[in-house]
């Protein structure tokens, strides 16, 4: 059921309470969400990573291989307010740099939380 079927969503996976707390504290926040996966991606559709403008983040969208690049993209989204869809994977031109070691591909929606 790798394509976003029923999964047990652990409280460790649930980043929205942290997003709410950061916004409450006046921080700027962006949210990255896995919207599609192909092949053996490590995190299912719906997995989320939240980033605050100080650079702290919670959650994950991969096994850890692309989080750095996603945090960078999230900080950009915080600045310009534009939602973006980004894709990572073996066919990505940056694959050998920030690709997924497992050989899968994922597509993410990265958006600012207003």
């Amino acid at each position, binding site marked *: 059921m790798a394509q976003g*079927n029923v999964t047990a969503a652990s*409280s460790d996976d649930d980043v929205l309470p942290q997003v709410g707390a950061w916004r409450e504290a006046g921080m700027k926040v962006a949210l990255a969400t896995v919207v599609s996966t192909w092949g053996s991606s490590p995190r299912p559709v719906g997995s989320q990573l939240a980033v605050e403008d100080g650079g702290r983040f919670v959650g994950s969208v991969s096994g850890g291989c692309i989080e750095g690049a996603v945090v960078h993209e999230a900080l950009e989204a915080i600045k310009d307010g*534009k939602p973006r869809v980004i894709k990572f994977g073996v066919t990505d031109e940056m694959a050998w740099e920030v690709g997924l070691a497992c050989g899968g591909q994922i597509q993410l929606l990265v958006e600012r939380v207003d």
Partner: protein
Amino acid sequence: MKRAILDRLQKDRASKRPVALATRLADGAETIVYPEGAFGDLERDAVVLAAARRGLAEDRSGVHQTASGEIFVHVYNPALRLIIVGAVHIAQPLARMAAIAGYDVTIVDPRQSFANDERFPGVPLVDDWPDDALAALKPDRRTAVVTLTHDPKLDDPALAVALRSDAFYVGALGSRKTHGKRVERLTEQGFGTAEIGRIHGPVGLSLGAVTPAEIAVSILAQITQVLHPKDAA
């Protein structure tokens, strides 16, 4: 994501209301969608609402190609449930581990010396007789049921309800011999081979588990395996 959407989504999830968030990938327009009703930018877009409700019904998040563009439907159904019958020692680590794995855990045991807040802090406890308790909890296809009492008076009535429910997993603690007797009793009660065959017994994956915590690992591992049948091959 707009703050009003986030706040509403959090409130809905806290009240265990099934809800989906539909987001148009092109511009981030978003709407909260319920089985009935919707709230947000796209709340009047019938195509988007239909896609989101399909996602809710199938319990599946994903991107839908629609006449209104690519729509990501994020399904936030309430957590999967685990009903543990028997507030025994194994139930203590199992309740904690299952909560970490994302299950909403309920423990059923009419014996208050077993089922009390000191032994199970923060876990909802039901002290009704197991058949009444299970009938009230209504196990559905997002529910796992495990019986741990070792006592047919308590386990069997729970199994009788669980086997005629849509529970995606039914497990019963006990050795092969104990399970053999259980099969005989349930057969006498009129349960068929297919129904009885749904019971995972002896419960848990064969890991050589010895301690209560290890047995809890083996049970949770088996529940996980049954939840993801395609991935287990």
